Each structure stands twice: as C-alpha cells, then as structure tokens.
C-alpha cells in the first residue's frame, strides 16, 4: 500500500461556461520515506495539486488516499510550506512557529511550546531573529520561518510548494541543503513542487513532470539513483545526471513545443489590405 496515493484525480474550477478542467487524470503513488519532486510550468496546476493533497480543496472526481484512508480536510500529519510563505504579519518569528506547535501539541505547557519552537527556529538558523516580525526579515529568512513552522507540527509528510522559488541562487542552494538535512534526519516522506529541474534532481528520489494545463496531467517519472549526500559539482560532471537532466528538459521542452505549435495554429490572420486614403482625396 502506498503512503500517499492519487487515483484518477480531476479538478475543475468554475461553472457553466467558465468551467475549466485544471487537472485531469492524475495518478501518483508515493512510498513512505520517499522524496518526490514534481516539476511544471507556471500556471500548470501545481498549487492546485498541493491543495488537493493537503486537504484544502476536494477533487471534482477521483480519490486522494493518505495511509490508505481518503483525505477529508487538513491534518497535522501533512505539513505544508505554502508558495507565498503565508506567515502571519502581526506575529513574530517565535509566535508564528509557536502557533504551529500549539496546534499540534495542544495539551502541553507553555514552556514546552517555547522550547519546541526554539528548537525548530534554531534548526533553520534563525535564533538571532526570533523576536522579529516578518516584515523585518529578508525573503530567505521568511522562507526559513515557513520551513520551521511546517516542521514544528511534526508532520509525517511534508509538502513544499515551490518553497525556494523567490530566492537567489546562493540562498537557494543553502536552503536546499538545510531541507535535505532535516529530511535525512528522520526520513519523513516529502513532496517538493518546483519549476527548477536541477533542484528536483539534486533533492529527489523521483522526479515527475506535470504537463501544462488546462487538463494538466503527470508525465512519465524519472528515477534519480544518485548516492546521498549528493555533491553539486560532482553531479554536474556525472554522466547519468546529464542524461536524466537532458531527458527531463527534453520532455518539458517537448511539451513546450507542443504548446507553441498549438498556439500558432489558432491565430491565422485574415487577409486585409489597408484602404488607399491618399487616392480618395485626389
């Protein structure tokens, strides 16, 4: 039995004329302890997929099974890092994290909450900023608060929606390692949504492209059999990395080509010649 299973998922937004099917026929299985990455273009329905899995929205048809049971609403077992961090701006770093600790362990004392929050804040190296408000933090720091908040619920599975999308390359690399470290410690199941193929290959065991929507669906999966911990410079030289990378990019580009040619077909300009104004007034 798979840890997380999506069966023939369809998701449509809107009604009547405005109805669009964003996701169609999504099938996915993730095993316990696996790190899976999904890559896709912007607007292809990645966030929609994430929200289906964490229980914020329900599929139009099909089933989401978590540990064999259908997903109904959200659960502390699935932690989410939102695409736009979604920290509460009126709470400090500590208060934002404590909120999650409190939600997951409501029966503990305040000192326990504080200690747990401090532990996760230290884990993402934010102890010096513990009493700051989100607006006083840089983008990378905010992102790390979001990571700490998601981990503080001690979820069995962690779902990350383009968690590093807004960061510069250097910060991005650092945070990738931090996330992998944390994941490696107790091998929780992880799902990473990203638009960066290299990031997917560096971090995941399996990487699956999402065909652009409407009617987005998952493409063939690519297994990444590289040893962990992975080394970025070594990877860049490795033959198997290059092959996988090219294959994925070709697949995504292929989708891109398809999309472009579709778009081209639509716009055939009618033959029009401008009127000869000059001659009219002769």
């Amino acid at each position: 039995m798979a840890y997380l299973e999506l069966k023939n998922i369809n998701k449509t937004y809107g009604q009547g004329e405005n109805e669009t099917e964003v996701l169609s026929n999504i099938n996915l299985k993730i095993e316990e302890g696996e790190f899976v990455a999904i890559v896709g273009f912007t607007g292809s329905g990645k966030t929609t997929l994430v929200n289906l899995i964490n229980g914020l929205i329900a599929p139009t048809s099909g089933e989401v099974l978590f540990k064999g049971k259908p997903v109904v609403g959200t659960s502390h077992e699935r932690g989410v890092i939102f695409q736009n961090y979604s920290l509460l701006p009126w709470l400090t770093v500590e208060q934002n994290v404590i909120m999650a600790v409190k939600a997951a362990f409501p029966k503990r004392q305040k000192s326990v909450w504080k200690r747990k929050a401090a532990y996760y804040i230290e884990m993402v190296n934010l102890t010096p900023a513990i009493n700051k408000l989100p607006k006083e933090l840089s983008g990378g720091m905010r992102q790390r608060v979001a990571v700490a908040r998601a981990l503080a619920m001690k979820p069995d599975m962690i779902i990350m929606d383009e968690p590093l999308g807004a960061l510069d390359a250097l910060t991005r690399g650092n945070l990738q390692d931090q996330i992998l470290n944390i994941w490696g410690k107790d091998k929780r199941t992880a799902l990473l949504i990203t638009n960066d193929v290299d990031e997917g290959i560096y971090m995941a065991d399996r990487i699956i492209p999402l065909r652009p929507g409407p009617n987005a669906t998952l493409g063939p999966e690519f297994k990444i059999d590289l040893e962990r911990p992975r080394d970025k410079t070594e990877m860049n030289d490795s033959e198997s990395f290059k092959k996988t990378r090219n294959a994925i990019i070709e697949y995504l580009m292929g989708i891109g080509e398809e999309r472009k040619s579709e778009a081209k077909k639509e716009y055939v300009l009618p033959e029009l010649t401008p009127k000869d104004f000059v001659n009219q007034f002769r």
Partner: protein
Amino acid sequence: MKASIALGRVTKFIGLGFLTSIKDLFTGKLEKEDFKNFLRKAVVPLASIFLFLGMWHLGSKSLYNIEAEFKIEKALKDQGQAAAEALKTCIASGESSCQPNTLPSPAQVWESFQSLLRDHNIISADKAAFIEKTAALNEKRIAAGKDAIVYTGRPSFVDQIFRSLQTVFAGFLLALLIAVPLGIFIGLSPTLKSAFNWFIQIFKPVSPVVWYLLVFMIVKTVLIGSTDDSSFTISFISVGLCSMWATLVNTAMGVSSVDKDFINVAKVLKLGTFQKIFKVVLPSSLPLIFTGLKITLSVAWMVLIAIELLAQSPGLGLFVWEEFQNGANDSNAKIIVAMFAIGIIGFLLDRIMLSIQNWVSFDKQDAI
C-alpha cells in the same frame, strides 16, 4: 542626533512633518534641494493662514460697516436726527452697548479667547478656595455618613471642553462596545449579515437630532422617578448610537474579508473556532476596525455639539447655545472661539486615531 531623528519620526507620524523643516531651518541643516520642500510644507501653510486671517478681517469690517449704517439710518427714521448723531458717536467711540452685532473680527475673537482664559483662572481659583474651605467640613460629613458638599459654581470654558470630551469618550466607548462585537458576529455569519443588513441600511443615515429624541423617549421612561440629571446619559448614548455605524460596517467587512492565505494557514494548522477568530481573523481585520473607529470618533465629536445643545447637557454645545441666547456684546466672538476649539480638538482626536491606526496596520506584502 538620535533625538532629532526621533522628533522627525514623531512629527511625521502625526502628520506635522513641516515642523521638522522649520527646525532644520534654524539649525542650518537645510540643503538646497530641501528648500522647495520647505517652501511647500512650511511657508505655504503659514502664508495661507495669514491670507485667511486677512480676508476674515476685511470681511468682518465690511459687515460691521453695513450693520452700523443700517442702525444709524434706522435711528434717523425712527427717532430723528439727534438720536442718529448720538448713535454715530457712540459707535465710533467703541462703547460696547451700541456696537453693531455681526461677524467679529480676528482681533475680537482673540480678545474673547483671552477673556475666557482669565475667566477660567478666576473660576479655578474660586473652586480651589472652596474645596480648601470645605475640606474639613466634608471629612466630618462623610464620617457622619452624609454627602459631601460639592462646588456648584458656573463652569468655565475649559471645564465645558472637558465635559464635552467626557461625553464624547463615553459615547465612543459605547459605540465601540456595541459595534465591534456585533460587527464580528455579522462578519462571521452570512445569516446574521442578511438579518442585520436592512437594520444597518435604515438606521445609518438617521440624523443626530432624531437619535437624540429616540434616546430621550427611552431614557426618560427607564429612569422614571429618579431625581438625577439624565442629560449626560441621554447625550452620550445618543452620540454613541449616532456614530457607531462606521465601526459596525468596517468591522463586519474586515472580518468577512480576511485574506484567503491566512484562512488557509488556520485550516492547515487546524485551529479551533475560538483560536481562529482571535489569532487570525481579528488581527487581520484590526486595520479596518480602526479605520471604522477613527470615523466613529470624528462623527461622535461632530454630532456632540448638536446633541449637547438639544439635551442641555453641559459642554461646548451648551456653551455655544447659551452664548447665542445671551446676545451679549462679545457673545459672537465667544461662539467663534468655541468653533475653533471644536475644530482643533477634532483635528487632534483624528490625529491620535490615525497614529493608532498606523500602528496596528500591517502590509500583507510584508509577510510574503
């Protein structure tokens, strides 16, 4: 240096940024490019104040002349040449009994302002003396279980201002206590919203006078048989009911339109209803609630004068009414002093609320 930065921040915060530029002028810190800024922020307002005073002065002078000529003409027609001549010299001499009654000039208003302050000093001294005199007696009376003797003299202008502030704060508090909780309930429940919508739409535009009459009808009966003066109660309740609508509407709107991302956070953390309201919904609607409270306070201050006047409740409204009835020589000038007091206090109240509002508001962009 630190202090000057703090000053700059504070003055900017309360919207008196031009004070900093005046200060910079004296400390010689003004750069050339600051000069335009200084001109706009300090010189222009000052110039417009002088222009205003000048026009007021000229206007009141011409009104004075019209009124004086009319008076003399009337005397000539009714009582003959001699009476008209006498009136003319009387007016020219500045004798207070025969002055034309019209819009007072800025100088007269300033004079009245000072006389009101002198009056206040006299009354306060009188009051202090009275309290000192009765202190020993009052102690005995209280020990014997009797009521203390209180000062019942005429209130000064400053006392009236404080009475008005008391009334407006009591009314504001009432509005806050009714409108904020009710707004939260309405914002949370679409059912309550449709239940209350007609109610809000109908009562929102009702005028202060009608609110006063309504409250009067009810309070009069509720306090039947009581000998206490109910004018304060009636006026603060009317002020509260009259001004609470902006807060009610804004609170409901803030609560019903919390950002979807924050609601998603609450859902993912599986917060209970109580936690969700107090940790997510309320903080995120605080900026709108305070916008409502700011409007409420300024409306409360605006309608207060009319309601005090109707309720005969002590305060600036009653002061204005009494001066108008009084018709003494400097009554008009006193009314204008009251007008400025009302305007300036209203402005300050607005600024205070604006500062609080700036303080509680946040930019959602800040957390993304």
